[in-house]
């Protein structure tokens, strides 16, 4: 892909006071680029859920946003415990969140499924004890035309 816009945001694990900041920047940038609302909404959901996952489970991570005329790419890489069973983690309702995280209304086992629903392509690689890499793509289709 030939990115016309690229930016990387840092995410601190465990810091819920800043959670959503990266997703908020993603939204702002995509709006400035002037993308259609449906693409922005999907990318923002992906960015927010991925950011919350880093905040909830990882030590730290970073999110890179790359936008081209044909796609929005969100790459999130973290240093942390990793995901033992990705297939299980993708199941709606499955979560390893602590009680404290659940009390805030997170950890309902909806994050990864939400990401999947809103992505045209999704790839998750994880190494237990090391970290997780998530790459999600949203395809931008020209109105009534080619992809």
């Amino acid at each position: 892909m030939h990115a016309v816009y690229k930016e990387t945001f840092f995410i601190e694990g465990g810091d819920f006071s800043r959670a959503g900041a990266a997703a908020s920047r993603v939204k702002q940038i995509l709006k400035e680029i002037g993308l259609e609302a449906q693409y922005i909404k999907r990318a923002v959901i992906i960015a927010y859920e991925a950011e919350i996952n880093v905040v909830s489970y990882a030590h730290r991570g970073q999110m890179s946003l790359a936008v081209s005329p044909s796609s929005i790419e969100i790459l999130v890489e973290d240093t942390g415990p990793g995901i033992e069973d990705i297939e299980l983690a993708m199941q709606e309702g499955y979560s390893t969140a602590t009680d404290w995280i659940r009390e805030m209304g997170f950890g309902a086992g909806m994050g990864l499924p939400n990401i999947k629903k809103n992505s045209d392509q999704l790839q998750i690689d994880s190494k237990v004890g090391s970290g997780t890499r998530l790459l999600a793509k949203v395809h931008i289709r020209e109105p009534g035309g080619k992809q």
Partner: protein
Amino acid sequence: MKLHEVVDALGLKVRCCQDRLDREVGGAYVSDLLSDVMARARAGDLWITLQTHLNIVAVAALNDLAGVVLVNGREPEQGTLSKAQDEGVVLMVSEEPTFEVAGKLYQMGIRGVHGPG
């Protein structure tokens, strides 16, 4: 229906952004799970919840919600208030529980995601 009409009809206390009550309310959504709101709420919706921590502000702002109604007289935390000021998110408090708030909104003609009309 404008947000200030809802505030008057339900006797809500506005804790942030009194100057933003002129907004049209497009619908409403009830949930205490943040991912659920991310997935289902639409821009212009009122969000009814018992969560009071500051992450509700990010969820409301990211989804361009009309405002957040905190139920059972639950007050926003200090961090929530200051973040709402920064982001311009309307926070309101109802003394009533979720069921009553939602019921009154429905009676006023406000509908949810799958509601008719």
